[in-house]
């Protein structure tokens, strides 16, 4: 906050001068060596994997080389069946995620309003959180069948709790000073909620959504493991049965790409919506 007059207006700070970012990047590398180290580790590991598996006598059907996985992955990209499975899994995960997010925000908002409700509900939330929720997948398949429903519900159940916990923590995180300021002008409880508590909770809610969206993919895959005729989880099991290990790794690669894309989308939305928060605050896990 040194130069006030030249500070770019926040929402559209995109067109920046060319000299400044370059200087900043060089400075960043000095202060944050991980910017170099992270890709360097990746390259070293992949190269070692590529060139050491044969000399070490590791069988291809146990651990295929990165180039073989890449070949299998590229082959999948040309296969309509693969894309159909991607669509199935993404639809299940996203539907589950949306249900979880909306549900957790509504329930969390209600719980955070009334202290008695919060005190009553929180022990159960904590208890349920300690249950490994993948363990209920078989039950979901029994209850909701082999179709998409059981996967959507798995995705929703797994994504629900991280969002819920963050919504509750976020709604309680508002500065007492800001609440007092609004109170002094005669604001109602609802106005204080809308004008202070909810915006204060947004960084937390996004932290929860970030975890939740990745969990929802996990939930859909686990559901597909138990019983499905389509989806990436199904394809992964098929590759396993057929001893197509490069194909199995290709699905794993596809799943990580999905996870990363989902994470980046949430992060982008967070940056746009919670623009005032520089990202160094908020988020309970």
């Amino acid at each position: 906050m040194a130069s006030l007059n030249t500070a770019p207006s926040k929402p559209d700070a995109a067109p920046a001068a060319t000299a400044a970012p370059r200087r900043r990047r060089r400075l960043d590398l000095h202060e944050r060596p991980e910017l170099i180290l992270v890709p360097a580790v990746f390259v070293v590991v992949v190269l070692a994997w590529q060139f050491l598996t044969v000399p070490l006598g590791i069988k291809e059907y146990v651990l295929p080389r990165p180039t073989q996985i890449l070949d299998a992955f590229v082959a999948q990209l040309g296969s309509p069946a693969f894309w159909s499975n991607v669509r199935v899994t993404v639809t299940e995960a996203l539907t589950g995620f949306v249900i979880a997010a909306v549900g957790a925000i509504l329930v969390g908002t209600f719980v955070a309003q009334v202290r008695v409700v919060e005190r009553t509900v929180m022990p159960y939330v904590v208890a349920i959180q300690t249950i490994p929720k993948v363990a209920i997948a078989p039950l979901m398949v029994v209850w909701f069948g082999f179709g998409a429903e059981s996967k959507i519900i798995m995705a929703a159940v797994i994504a629900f709790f991280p969002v819920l916990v963050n919504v509750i923590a976020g709604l309680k995180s508002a500065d007492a000073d800001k609440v007092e300021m609004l109170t002094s002008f005669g604001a109602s409880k609802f106005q204080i909620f809308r004008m202070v508590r909810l915006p204060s909770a947004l960084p937390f809610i996004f932290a929860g959504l970030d975890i939740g969206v990745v969990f929802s993919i996990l939930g859909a895959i686990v559901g597909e493991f138990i019983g499905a005729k389509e989806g990436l989880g199904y394809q992964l099991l098929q590759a396993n049965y057929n001893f197509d290990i490069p194909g199995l790794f290709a699905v794993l690669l596809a799943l990580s790409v999905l996870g990363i894309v989902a994470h980046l989308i949430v992060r982008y939305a967070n940056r746009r919506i919670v623009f005032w928060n520089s990202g160094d605050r908020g988020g309970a896990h």
Partner: protein
Amino acid sequence: MTRSAASSGNVRTPEDAHDRWIDVRGLQKIYRPRKSEPTHALADVDFTVRKGEFVAVVGPSGCGKTTLLKILAGLVQRSEGTVRISGVDVDGPKREVGMVFQAPTLLPWRTILENVLVPVEVQKLDRTAHRKRAVELLDMVGLGGFADKYPNELSGGMQQRAGICRALVHDPAVLLLDEPFGALDAMTREYMNVELLRIWRESRKTAVLVTHSIPEAVFLSDRVIVMTPRPGRIAEIIDIDLDRPRDLSIMASDAAGVYVERIRRYFNNSGVIN
């Protein structure tokens, strides 16, 4: 029209009501935090403020000045005593009160203009008319070019000035100011003092200002309430007999110097150095 007797038993005349526009009697405040020792913040505080009067409160840090202002604003419960504004018991926030907080307390997700309009939104006042007023107020405090910026793009002093605009935007009859100029440089501070006097004079507000600056208290006020260290009591209430309207040159006068010295002596005696 029959006038109901005040709880003290005195029948209040209209002049009385005018003179006791803000009426504080036997005020005590003891904070009782759940997890620590109680703090006796205010003890036996009695004073009145006339309608349209400008009163400053000075006293050492921690003597309960903010507490006093928050009790007047209906934000903090008193432990004992009566507090009335325009004859009505203060039991919660009132719309005719505008408060400037010690910290700017802006909402980081709103632009400066939207922040200034918070009271208008809360009280559901006419938005277009008040928007114009908000822009004028921002111009007046030198933030005309910053209406659409966000608080984190402004310095602390600029944020504090926005906080002052927010307290004025709905034209409250009573203005409570908690060290509003603490974060400002000396030049801006003097300018803001003069502007505050102008607003106060033109809009005939009743103002209570907490400040650490003795010359500022003398320059602005009709009366200065000097408080003791905690628990805050009133040491003396000093009438400032300087002609109005005032400008900064009055501070060079002997009369002003005498007032400043007199108040300063309290601080020196109590061993509190500002």
